């Protein structure tokens, strides 16, 4: 008897008899849907207007196991598996010019701001903001996008230090 545990296909076991407990006649499969995971980043430095929530053009993928991330048109993650997703955002800007600059990375769910990760920096510092957490997605229409915000004068968002990633932590 061989039971296969695989991160992509789940747990697969053949029909078997477990002495003294029960008889499994048909075998079973648990979690047999490929678990989406992705990581994306912008290919070029982007200019962000002051005090304006701006969607990050994430047009380069490190990986996208379920083809759930759109890196060509809308730059959004729309998985087709319902569940709770671990989502990670990080953005870094070059040295900022204004004191007490507030910077945020923002996860948008279905077009509206959902969660914020913020930081406040002084003149000459880099502004590094991030957010990580679990987000429920319904596996059909729900989608996530990454926005950034700065209260400073218009700045450049470094492509090297900007990333949006996530994976299915628990199916619904």
């Amino acid at each position: 008897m061989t039971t296969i545990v695989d991160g992509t296909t789940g747990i697969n076991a053949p029909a078997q008899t477990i002495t003294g407990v029960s008889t499994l006649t048909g075998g079973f499969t648990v979690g047999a849907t490929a678990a989406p995971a992705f990581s994306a980043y912008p290919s070029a430095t982007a200019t962000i207007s002051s005090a304006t929530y701006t969607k990050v053009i994430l047009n380069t993928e490190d990986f996208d196991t379920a083809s759930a991330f759109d890196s060509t048109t809308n730059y959004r993650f729309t998985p087709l598996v319902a569940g709770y997703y671990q989502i990670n955002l990080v953005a870094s800007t070059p040295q900022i010019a204004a004191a007490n600059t507030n910077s945020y990375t923002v996860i948008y769910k279905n077009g509206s701001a959902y969660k914020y990760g913020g930081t406040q920096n002084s003149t000459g510092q880099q502004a590094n903001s991030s957010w990580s957490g679990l987000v429920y997605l319904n596996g059909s229409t729900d989608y996530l996008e990454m926005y950034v915000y700065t209260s400073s004068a218009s700045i450049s968002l470094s492509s090297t230090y900007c990333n949006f990633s996530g994976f299915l932590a628990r199916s619904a």
Partner: protein
Amino acid sequence: MTLYEKIMTLYPQLVDEDFSPRGSITLQNDSDGKGDYIAKWEHTLPRPTDEQLA
């Protein structure tokens, strides 16, 4: 001049907090080529007209 700069020219009394996540004004750019726009205006000051922002 950005949308934010135009609004600040009209209403110099506005502060950073008005545009922050807890503020009453949200400016947004969806990176779809349409540029910056006012996504939310709940401030007591009147919402600027298109003519004022042109």
